[in-house]
């Protein structure tokens, strides 16, 4: 079985080609650095099966960040390379092509975005290019699937270029210059409306007001879509489900099974948030509280990603993010982290240094509320009014800013400057957006539900064993004495490690005042990440930095909780 690796510059459409070749779904977007890890898939050529690997994009074979290191590693393992090239930017892309050819691996060139090149008045002589590079060249439009058939058909023709010898950097550029003069013709293009919008959204004077408007519109849309889904789809569904659950409850009769599956009845009724049964809270929390917002968020995120707006936002936030020891690209992991912290922390791989990655991961885990955390905040404080919710988010924002400033001072290491290609604006394709949203929802359901069930199970077990009482006693000085919360809140913090959203049902029955609830929810979001985030941080940062990050989080939670108590409770 041959290993076929897709290589190319960032944002040329490798992941789209990969999806087309293998039928496997991977996330593809319109910004450099979408793919930070490799994905594997299978493809059949005749009778033979081949392994296809989608590598992160890289500008050259000298890596400058972790994602590019992965690309280089994949290159080493490859038996055959499909070099995906952006036809609208052939000259620059050829640098990597030549480097690959110099290493004498069999290569086939996919000249992607062929349609866009034609529209912008670039014509490339394919025959001449094949002759110059001595490898097959196939024009493709991966998004629509055009040319993919030819690409598959000609993979057998892939060969190494015998006449291209290893050369130094300047010789390579001279060779590229010759090739380009020979094969490419560009007709002059006038500035279009798209260029005008592009520039307006990246210049400081117009860009900042636009960014604010866009972000507010996005937030409003997320909450609007989420609420609509709840009131027209998910709540009615649960109204239908309630009689079934009650039926099960009656059939089971009082006992351990009823406790476990249905949970405590409140005033003889099932309370989906507080009952804590597998078939009540265990289903209600993921489906009716979190899922609607997950759908809404990922739908909007997909539109954002595919339009190409995110790199522009990165440019605008660059100056501020430098104060936090990162650069503008840091906004992209933060943005992804708003859905779920795990992909957010993974996206930090595109940052160049360890310091930047550490700060990005820690800040996301500590103060970027994922959808589960948001659901918890809204679920607990929603009944008391928007003001309390605002308090939580304002605190999180302050924690983000001050932690960023502090970590920038504390951490040793470099914070290099931004160097980011801005892709042209593209119209998001409806099918692609829906497919991407579905992939992420699927992923959420797969990850979240087992942990929710485990959480509910654990809560029931811990109560039965009496562990909750015991733990509450131990942490009472901190929880009661320092944060001003009832000691039973300890369990909620403990269970928060599994799923933050489950803590809603545990905090509500404690009869806390709204201000106490504000403190409890804020602490729940910052004190410690959930188990999934914890695992990915461990993998990305290593044990030592993970311990550092954890210590920082615990310290922050301690300080912030104490301060909030002083300010909000006034004691």
């Amino acid at each position, binding site marked *: 079985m041959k290993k076929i690796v897709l290589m190319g510059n960032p944002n040329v459409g490798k992941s789209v080609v990969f999806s087309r070749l293998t039928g496997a779904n991977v996330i593809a977007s319109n910004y450099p650095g979408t793919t930070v890890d490799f994905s594997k898939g299978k493809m059949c050529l005749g009778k033979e099966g081949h392994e296809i690997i989608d590598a992160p994009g890289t500008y*050259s074979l000298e890596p*400058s960040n972790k994602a590019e290191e992965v690309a280089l590693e994949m290159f080493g393992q490859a038996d055959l390379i499909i070099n995906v090239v952006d036809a609208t930017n052939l000259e*620059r892309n050829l640098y990597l092509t030549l480097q690959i050819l110099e290493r004498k691996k069999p290569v086939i060139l996919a000249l992607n975005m062929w349609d866009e090149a034609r529209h912008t008045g670039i014509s490339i002589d394919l025959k001449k290019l094949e002759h110059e590079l001595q490898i097959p060249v196939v024009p493709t439009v991966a998004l629509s699937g055009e040319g993919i058939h030819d690409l598959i058909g000609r993979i057998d023709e892939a060969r190494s270029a015998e006449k291209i010898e290893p050369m130094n950097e300047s010789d390579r550029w001279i060779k590229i210059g010759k090739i380009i003069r020979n094969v490419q013709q560009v007709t002059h293009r006038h500035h279009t409306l798209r260029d005008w919008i592009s520039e307006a959204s990246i*210049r400081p004077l117009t860009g900042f007001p636009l960014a604010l408007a866009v972000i507010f519109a996005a937030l409003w849309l997320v909450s609007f879509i989420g609420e609509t889904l709840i009131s027209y789809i998910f709540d009615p569904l649960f109204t239908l489900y309630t009689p079934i659950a009650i039926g099960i409850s009656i059939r089971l009769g009082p006992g351990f099974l009823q406790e476990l599956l249905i949970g405590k009845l409140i005033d003889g009724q099932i309370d989906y948030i507080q009952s804590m049964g597998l078939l009540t809270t265990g289903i209600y929390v993921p489906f009716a509280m979190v899922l609607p917002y997950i759908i809404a968020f990922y739908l909007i995120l997909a539109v954002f990603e595919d339009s190409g707006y995110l790199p522009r936002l990165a*440019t605008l936030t660059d100056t501020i993010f430098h104060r936090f020891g990162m650069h503008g690209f840091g906004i992209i992991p933060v943005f992804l982290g708003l859905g779920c912290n795990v992909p957010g922390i993974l996206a930090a791989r595109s940052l160049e240094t360890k310091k930047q990655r550490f700060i990005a991961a820690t800040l996301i885990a500590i103060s970027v509320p994922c959808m589960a955390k948001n659901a918890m905040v809204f679920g607990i404080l929603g009944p008391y009014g928007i003001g309390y919710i605002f308090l939580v988010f304002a605190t999180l924002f302050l924690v983000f800013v001050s932690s960023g400033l502090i970590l920038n001072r504390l951490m040793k290491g470099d914070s290099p400057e931004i160097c980011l*290609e*801005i892709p042209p604006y593209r119209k998001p394709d409806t099918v692609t957006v829906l497919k991407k949203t579905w992939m992420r929802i699927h992923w959420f359901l797969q990850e979240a539900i087992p942990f929710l069930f485990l959480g509910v199970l654990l809560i029931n077990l811990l109560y039965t064993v009496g562990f909750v009482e015991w733990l509450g006693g131990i942490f009472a000085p901190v929880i009661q004495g320092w944060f001003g919360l009832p000691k039973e809140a300890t369990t909620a913090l403990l269970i928060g490690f599994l799923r933050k959203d489950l803590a809603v049902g545990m905090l509500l029955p404690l009869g806390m005042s709204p201000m106490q609830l504000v403190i409890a929810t804020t602490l729940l979001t910052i004190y410690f990440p959930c188990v999934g985030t914890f695992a990915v941080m461990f993998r990305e940062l290593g044990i030592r930095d993970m311990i550092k990050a954890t210590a920082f989080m615990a310290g922050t939670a301690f300080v912030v909780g104490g301060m909030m108590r002083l300010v909000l409770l006034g004691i």
Partner: protein
Amino acid sequence: MVYNIVYLGNYKWGYGNPADLISGPGSRIPFGRNPRSEPMIFIPTTARLLGIPKGYTMEQPITSLETGTTAVILRLEGGHWFQNKMRVIGIREQKIIRLVAKHPFNGPVVVEVDDREITIGRRMAEHIITKVPE
């Protein structure tokens, strides 16, 4: 557009060598001299006072161009790593470059090369030396 330019370096008024203040024909702007990325000041009037003829253009870093100006990249000043990083992303000698935006507080600079916009940090951009064609 044609500029008369006097370079004041990163030194405050009254400091530094006066020779550093003026860049003569073909003379090199002292780059490494700006460790804290303080803004560089260009004063046309001073140029006239010092007798630099009007209509004289010189090489200057992309950061001192006015937004919207098109120029030619003459050279990249800095280590091999920096030069390579710039070239592979498209910023190369002899390329026509346009300054799209300059962000305040020493923020990043957006340039356009080959119909593609690229955001680069201010300090990196200061090492891209350009010349505005007359």
